[in-house]
């Protein structure tokens, strides 16, 4: 009797493990499948209600955390800094490439939405729980015109891109996800590079140079490059603020062709975002 019970348990365990591996093999690399679309369609309204209901409690806990971190003390100054930073980035970019950025003067409040893109505002309704994935779920989807690879910004700058959509929700891969890589340039030098994250440090991105003939300096702004050529082009429109250089020693630049960048957006505390839909990029 006992042996039979043990055999049955082992069989169920083996079935579950084999099932997990089979699911993993079948669904890896797909955006979203019918089952996931169905489940998210059912639970998205519940998530939205829970998200709104729990916001006061979340805010309270996050406030405690921010107080510990002394961030809450200079909130007013931070707001002023954000405005100044946006103006500074816009100014530097306009100086460097005046013609190309004339349209940026008419941008939305972030000063970073290029013409031809329609911003769709969404709220974060879910976040992945582990340190290994940096994905958020937002409450807008294909029904609102959101498509995979649309850039996603918040008032501070770029936060990531859409990687999967369902009717009413979309999954956003943040800049801090290990599979994220964004083509950027440093303004005003115009140095091109690719920004990648460091797993476990969402406030540190690593900028690897593609052309390193010019040295970059601390506090210089990093914006999306939006490069194009020979039939291919970046998925991000140019000049969306990404972050600023925080560490740029000449020795490391020469030896490793890398510098550290701090993203403008607070990737650990995202509430409302804008998806840049439309546009001509593919």
């Amino acid at each position, binding site marked *: 009797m006992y042996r039979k019970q043990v055999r049955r348990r082992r069989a169920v365990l083996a079935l579950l493990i084999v099932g997990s591996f089979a699911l993993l093999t079948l669904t890896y690399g797909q955006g979203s499948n019918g089952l996931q679309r169905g489940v998210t369609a059912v639970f998205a309204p519940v998530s939205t209600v829970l998200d709104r209901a729990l916001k006061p*409690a979340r805010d309270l806990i996050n406030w405690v955390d921010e107080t510990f971190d002394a961030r809450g003390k200079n909130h007013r100054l931070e707001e002023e800094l954000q405005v100044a930073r946006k103006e500074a980035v816009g100014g530097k970019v306009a100086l460097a490439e005046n013609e190309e950025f004339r349209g940026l003067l008419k941008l939305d409040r972030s000063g970073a939405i290029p013409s031809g893109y329609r911003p769709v505002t969404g709220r974060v309704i*879910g976040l992945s729980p582990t340190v290994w994935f940096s994905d958020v779920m937002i409450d807008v989807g294909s029904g609102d015109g959101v498509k995979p690879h649309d850039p996603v910004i918040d008032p501070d700058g770029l936060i990531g891109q859409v990687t999967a959509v369902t009717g009413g*929700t979309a999954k956003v891969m943040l800049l801090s996800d290990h599979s994220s890589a964004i083509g950027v340039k440093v303004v005003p030098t115009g140095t091109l590079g690719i920004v990648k994250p460091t797993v476990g440090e969402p406030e540190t991105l690593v900028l690897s140079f593609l052309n390193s003939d010019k040295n970059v300096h601390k506090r210089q702004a990093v914006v999306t490059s939006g490069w194009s050529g020979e039939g291919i082009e970046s998925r991000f429109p140019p000049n969306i603020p990404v972050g600023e250089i925080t560490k740029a020693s000449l020795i490391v630049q020469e030896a490793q062709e890398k510098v550290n960048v701090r993203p403008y957006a607070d990737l650990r505390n995202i509430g409302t975002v804008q998806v840049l839909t439309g546009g001509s990029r593919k």
Partner: protein
Amino acid sequence: MILTPKIVARLIFVGLFGVLLQLTFFSQVELFHVSPDVLPALVVSLGLLGGTMTGAVSGFAIGFLLDCLLIQPLGGASLVLIAVGYAAGTFRERFEIHSRFVAPLLCALLTFAAELGFGAVEAMFGIHTDVSILVLRDMLIKSVFAFFLGWAIYAGLRRLVRPALVDEATVRRTRRPTVLGA
């Protein structure tokens, strides 16, 4: 654990509510720059109360729902949480340790193991960037959170499924009758 339809319905509700609460609340709050992960603690508690099968099946189901709602490749979270639930169940079936610290300590330990597991699943498909040593700090703080949250989760779950617990039934049966006037 004696699984009656009522108890199964309660367990399904707990799983659904746990996943939704994790995504909409715990993942979005931070203390010391780390968000708590209650799902391994939930699976550990289910494994401790119900044994290996309950632990493994609930781990699979919770992981599956998590992957569905986060539009991730299905099976990754399930694989990790099956192991966590099975380990907790094995502990309950093999060791006769009755201490109020067993549940929170196991929650902390297996949350750390689960975080390593999630990393291993990700590494299986390739991590294309640097991994900071601070990941370990995050895992350790998550484990500390799991210790305290696991305490509450285990106590709450125990209360919720009390009618189905075999040891509780034994205690109830062997309790001495109250003699008035004695």
